């Protein structure tokens, strides 16, 4: 994003459009960002928590733009009173909508025997060491009432061995068994069939996955990275508690 700004900023407006009235702010900000990065698909322009600034969501990025369209802030905004990362919190709300929209039938689900207390979505890569380490804890996650929904994110991208392995696991008769075997280091029997791997990879990019494993809680926040069962449970308990207290 930063590079995009640098690239396109020279093509920037000679005259900055200033807002004439507060209600025009959104349109001014939208036009300013569009001029700055013509190729950007702006998903949302709305008032930000900071006086005089709007927030603009472009894919998995959030930037803050002054109401006159002149100042563009890219980074993390904290609320010192509630002690929260407002940027991440806002993006979590974007992510949760995208993640929830992804059908259960296309996930590889490892669920507890009894009713799940928590559900996490994990973007995974068969050839990633910490993904394998995480999978080795599966029984323990499940025992703690945590359901793990896997989506594939072969980091090397389409047309690579990791991607093909994901396809092979998806096309296996018993996906869960094939996943567990592959995570233990066994090369899956090469199979092809109609599969959602590309879709999952793109979803991963859309919600800001940069590495694997990428662990998302039900509120759309990314909580890891590799997490031991203790760490994972602590995160999920805290999120549940925060939700209960209404923050």
């Amino acid at each position, binding site marked *: 994003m*930063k590079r995009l*700004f*640098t690239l396109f*900023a*020279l093509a*920037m*407006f000679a005259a*900055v459009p200033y807002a004439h009235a507060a209600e025009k702010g959104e349109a001014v900000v939208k036009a*300013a960002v569009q001029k*700055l990065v013509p190729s950007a698909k702006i998903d949302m322009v709305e008032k930000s*928590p*900071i*006086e*005089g*600034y709007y927030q603009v969501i472009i894919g998995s990025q959030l930037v*803050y733009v*002054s109401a006159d*369209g*002149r*100042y*563009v*802030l*890219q*980074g*993390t*905004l*904290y*609320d*010192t*009173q509630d*002690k*929260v*990362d*407002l940027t991440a919190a806002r993006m979590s709300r974007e992510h949760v909508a995208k993640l929830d929209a992804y059908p259960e039938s296309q996930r590889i689900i490892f669920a507890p025997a009894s009713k799940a207390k928590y559900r996490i979505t994990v973007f995974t890569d068969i050839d990633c060491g910490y993904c394998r380490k995480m999978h080795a804890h599966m029984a323990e996650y499940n025992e703690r009432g945590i359901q793990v929904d896997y989506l594939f994110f072969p980091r090397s991208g389409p047309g690579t061995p990791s991607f093909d392995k994901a396809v092979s696991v998806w096309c296996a008769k018993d996906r869960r068994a094939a996943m567990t075997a592959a995570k233990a280091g066994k090369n899956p029997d090469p199979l092809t069939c109609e599969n959602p791997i590309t879709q999952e990879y793109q979803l991963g990019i859309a919600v800001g996955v940069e590495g694997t494993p990428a662990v998302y809680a039900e509120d759309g926040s990314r909580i890891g990275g590799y997490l031991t069962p203790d760490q994972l449970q602590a995160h999920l308990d805290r999120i549940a508690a925060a939700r209960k207290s209404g923050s």
Partner: protein
Amino acid sequence: MRMLSTLLFASIAGSAMAATPEDVVNAALARLAPQVKVDVAQESVVPGFYEAIVGNQLVYVSKDGRHVFDGTARDASTDRDMTEAVYARKRRAALADVGADKRIVFAPARPRHTVTVFTDIDCQFCRRMHDQIDAYNELGIAVEYVFLPLDIHPGADRKSEAVWCAEDRKLAFTQAMAGADPGKAACENPVAETKRVARSIGIDGTPTTLAADGTKIAPQIALAPAQLLAELDRLAKNPLDSR
């Protein structure tokens, strides 16, 4: 500023109604990260914010003290990175303390530009850079080296001192950069001081190239003489004090 996120859940300090930038900044950061020490708190060119320097990091604090922004502010009307400009001013001030008598200077007759390069004899990219010293000079770029021997290179300290203490410092430097061991020699030298200056402005890698105005040049640009010239020309057209 990763520390802000780790300290996010640290205990709450009482909030204070305050008027000066110092008071607002101190109160806001104390709520977020009680153990940080604010070095500077001042007005910012970014509307609605004060700026605070904590260690070598710049963060923005909203004037009402409620919000802290950790990131980059850009003026879209001029394509200027306002955050980098603050850092550049700080580096420029620190460089002023490192006089010519503490540098090894390779300059053309009439330099168009001068860069300061923090260098380490045992760093491969530093050697690659010095390999091109004639090209830099021919383009009108004076290269002023200051020593920053890194701890990961045992012996680099000794080599820096030996080069500094050699009879022909520039020749000894060039030979050392070509792989010759300058041996051991002791005399009064500025190596400890230049290491301290580097640390004070957050420079912990080599080669680090700074333009005369303190702007940090990306390594891939600095290592290509023609690209470096283009970048220095661009910076000269865009003086720091108008940023």
